[in-house]
């Protein structure tokens, strides 16, 4: 019986405790140095502090690893610093935006905010009057009508690309991609030029919903296509082998299999259009009173409400604009959480 020598697993690439603590010390020192520099020179505010902190930290870490492990390691260290800076610069606006929306968004909201409209009040009037009821109703109608138009068209497009793979599939796929990039203002201008200008018809919620549909169709179609592609071909073949027609296979096998993904596609489409402002400026007219009929007369909406408050410019109007954004963001975040919930449910299956 000779004793068996088993090697204890080591991870030589792991930074040692000493290395980690030096790094932390350097980061802290850089923060301190940048603070001192900003305090004693002409620079002001938090922005230069952050910038100098980044420069100091990256430079010192690079010099340190350069001295210890050579030129390549120094370059590597600078690169890692740049990557961390990149993700920091990406997150900074997100955090700032969310924070501003939360901190400023509730100032204009009072008990009657959701049950009154702006028919009696100007955007610059005190914050205990007026509300967003008309805009909520308007946005509700816009989304419902846009859904009715663009969900069938979007899903049919996706089915054409995945199930029929007919002539021109590549072209359609390409055009749908290009269409998802057209500026929202063009959609509004198009509806205005085709259906409103010179026809005697006025602005209405329906026109706005048509413009929004142009933006929603490509989003729904692209996401739905991705989802339908994930349905295994075996399922389709099984359906056909049982003697079902292609129509029945799609309706009873493929679509049920992709159901949660299709719901995600629809939700992402709604999230895409919920905050669109530019097309509504050309098509809905933006009323201040409550209009229950989307087929006739000017209709308000949350983005248009924010827009009007923004144009007004007074502090009260700004508070109203932030409140509108707050509600819009709540909606977008909810939609996002829903989309994630449904796409996760799909994966678990």
């Amino acid at each position, binding site marked *: 019986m000779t004793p068996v020598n088993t090697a204890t697993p080591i991870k030589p690439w792991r930074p040692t405790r000493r290395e980690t603590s030096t790094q932390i010390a350097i980061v802290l020192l850089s923060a301190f140095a940048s603070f001192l520099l900003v305090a004693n020179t002409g620079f002001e505010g938090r922005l230069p502090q952050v910038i100098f902190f980044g420069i100091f930290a990256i430079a010192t870490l690079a010099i340190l690893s350069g001295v210890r492990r050579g030129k390549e390691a120094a*370059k590597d260290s600078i690169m890692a610093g740049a990557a961390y800076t990149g993700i920091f610069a990406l997150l900074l606006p997100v955090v700032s*935006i969310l924070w501003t929306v939360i901190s400023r968004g509730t100032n204009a909201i009072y008990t009657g905010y959701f049950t009154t409209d702006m028919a009696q009040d100007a955007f610059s009037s005190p914050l205990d009057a007026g509300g967003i009821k008309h805009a909520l109703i308007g946005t509700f109608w816009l989304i419902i009508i846009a859904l009715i138009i663009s969900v069938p068209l979007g899903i049919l497009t996706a089915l054409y690309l995945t199930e*029929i793979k007919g002539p021109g599939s590549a072209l359609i796929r390409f055009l749908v991609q290009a269409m998802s990039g057209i*500026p929202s203002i063009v959609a509004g201008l198009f509806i205005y030029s085709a259906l409103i200008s010179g026809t005697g018809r006025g602005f209405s919620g329906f026109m706005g919903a048509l413009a929004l549909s142009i933006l929603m169709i490509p989003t729904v179609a692209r996401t739905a296509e991705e989802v339908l592609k994930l349905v295994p071909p075996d399922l389709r073949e099984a359906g056909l082998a049982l003697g079902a027609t292609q129509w029945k296979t799609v309706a009873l096998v493929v679509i049920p299999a992709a159901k949660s993904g299709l719901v995600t596609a629809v939700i992402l489409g709604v999230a895409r259009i919920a905050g669109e402002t*530019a097309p509504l400026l*050309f098509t809905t007219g933006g009323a201040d009173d409550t209009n229950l009929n989307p087929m006739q007369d000017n209709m308000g909406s949350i983005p248009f409400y924010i827009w009007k408050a923004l144009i007004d410019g007074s502090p009260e109007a700004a508070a109203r604009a932030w409140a509108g*954004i707050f509600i819009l*963001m709540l909606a977008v975040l909810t939609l996002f959480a829903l989309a994630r919930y449904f796409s996760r449910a799909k994966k678990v299956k």
Partner: protein
Amino acid sequence: MDVTLLEARAPQGPIPTPRAIETKPRISDQIFRSIVALGGFSSLIILGLIASYLFFRGYSIMRTEGLSFITGYQWVSSINSDGTAGTEKSVYGVGAMLIGTLVTAAIALTIGVPISVFAALYLTFFAPARIKNFLVSVVDLMAAFPSILFGLWGLYVLMEPGMYVAELLNKYLGWIPIFSVPVPMFLRSPFIAGLVLAVMIIPIVTAISREIFSQTPLDRIQAAYALGASKWAMIKNVAFPYSYSGIVGGSMLGLGRAMGETVAVFTVLNILYQANFKILLGAGGNLASHIILKFGEASEEEIKALMAAGFVLFLMTLAVNMIANAIVNKTGRRGR
């Protein structure tokens, strides 16, 4: 037991005669296929309608103005107070706004693309899995922020630090023509509009760059490490060459978004009809914000000119998007 069952079910009698089969779908499937095809071609139809309507509405202006509609630096709509055409000749040229569009988009790309690429590098090669998943959904969420939110945020939050940076740039780099200002007016400048646009394109460019980076073949990454490469050397020699064209495509998608952005630019920028190359000076505009600005009080004729401007914008963004998608698709396919 099984054997007897099989025997019991064995076909009895003569072998069936051959029958004709065909590949032609049944009537129900033909109806189904034609309905789906009709829906499938809807995007083609819509794009065609957009192009033709904007073209025909704006045609008369484009014909009278000719090439100077694109190159002209003047937008004068002459109308009398009662709305009839004025005695002076109206001139429509979108040149100055085209320049504004390109200037703001260029600023956005200059700032946004490096941030996005490095952020994508972090997400692909540095981030631990759990943080990565969280950050990826943050980027997705950021892409879904409505543009008016960026405008509002740009106006009320970003303006102050943006002006601070602008003043610093002017102070130390003012000898470069684009950073000089004739009067110290840093509020609402193309530079700040470009900053807001940069924030708006970051999620798009990051998402696409990340996707392309993550398709870098693992064997090549490992080969580079095996040769003793540091992470940076691996990225420089394996990941970048592999994903270069994909990043270009992703940046062009960002360019398309930046060129077509309306509300955010209108909110942040001081819209004046002039070609402004001095990016720190508070004046300028882009094509889309110009359309919004003029639309409210436009005469019948000016509306037509705005349609023509919209047509130009549509063609520009469509072309940029098509090229970008072609590049991204090509890179994506190579990776799989």
